[in-house]
């Protein structure tokens, strides 16, 4: 990675990558991977799935890079890709084994110690997110993760999910109500506190 690419904004890197600059693309991946993983992790509540989803998002990014409009904020545009990939996975997972994966599947990763390490460190957090968002309808789940955990604005959430601002608010309202009652019942948080 050169100093020049380090100083570029992600938007500039995306433009260079559009023009076929492989170094810029690699730099763009390095720069945005943590945020892709974080979002995927919060949507999927699973370390292994989040790693895969982040990877797949970058493959899709590469395929659709020519559609990126540099006047748009790159992160919002890319969030849309990550969210789509994660939601596809969530749907596939639900079809396969109910909402959450069997834990024994993680044995596959035993060869890579760093994978095990982060899976271990993230396991508790994944469990918590699962408990709270598990039975939310898909859209509510995406809205509350993007808005309340990822700090996206209402407009950004609408843009990322391709829904109206009004729909974001409605979904947010129901999701928060559900999570509020779950925090009381599952985490023993007193009613006065939430």
């Amino acid at each position, binding site marked *: 990675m050169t100093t020049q690419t380090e100083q570029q904004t992600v938007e500039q890197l995306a433009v260079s990558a559009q023009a076929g600059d*492989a170094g810029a693309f690699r730099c763009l*991946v390095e720069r945005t991977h943590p945020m892709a993983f*974080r979002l995927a992790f919060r949507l999927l509540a699973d370390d292994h799935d989040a790693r895969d989803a982040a990877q797949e998002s970058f493959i899709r990014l590469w395929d659709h890079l*020519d559609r990126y409009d540099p006047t748009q904020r790159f992160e919002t545009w890319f969030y849309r890709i990550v969210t789509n990939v994660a939601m596809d996975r969530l749907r596939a997972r639900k079809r396969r084994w109910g909402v959450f994966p069997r834990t024994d599947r993680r044995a596959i990763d035993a060869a890579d110690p760093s994978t095990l390490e982060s899976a271990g460190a993230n396991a508790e957090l994944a469990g918590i997110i699962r408990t709270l968002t598990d039975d939310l309808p898909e859209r509510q789940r995406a809205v509350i993760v993007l808005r309340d955990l990822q700090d996206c604005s*209402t407009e950004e959430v609408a843009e990322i999910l391709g829904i109206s601002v009004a729909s974001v608010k409605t979904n947010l309202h129901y999701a928060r109500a559900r999570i509020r009652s779950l925090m009381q019942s599952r985490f023993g948080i007193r009613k006065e506190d939430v």
Partner: protein
Amino acid sequence: MNCTTARRLMLLARPGERSDRETHDLEHHLAECPACRKEQSAIGATVAGFRRIAGAEPVVPDRSIAAQEVIRRLRQSSPSASPIADALFRPAEAPAVRFALIAGVLIAATMFGFEVSTTLWDMHRLEMRFADRRPVSSAPSVFGGNPADMPLTAARKESLRSLGYSRASSERLIASAGIDRIFRPFLSGESVDAAVRGILGDTPEARTVLQMLRAHPAAASRLFGKGE
């Protein structure tokens, strides 16, 4: 302001999402309405509680290992044996491949009946430039003449071999598929601009090839498998 409007505004908890006027009206309403005050603090507490419980930072995988993995998967998902796909990620080794692509584009172009005479001179210069690497063509039959009765010259076969095809398979490909098929898989999924610039960089050669392709959209679309 009524309670319904107030509750809608409460969902926009972040500064900047409400106008000054709305914020003012909401505060005014909250001062007077105990039910909405209660709802407001409940929303605040729910969001804060949710963030406290579920919003911790996950341990993020190493970004440079992740980037390597992305590149590896990209190589695998594009036709991996393709020297062009490879060149996308190894620009330092690209010149031979670059030239092969240009040559390929032009061979294909002539096969589709392009009028390439205006760019012949540019191509000639290009050939000179890469002459020390691989003289794809020294015969005018590659770039000139009537495409319909262009023979399968040694130079054309040679240019295919420079793309990584064996002698036998390049002959078979030329004979059976036509050259457009040969290039399409390398480039599918990319815009013509991105594909050409990906190989050639932002160079006069790239501009020449793109100019030519723009002037002949139908052939470009056949060549790249895309309507552009």
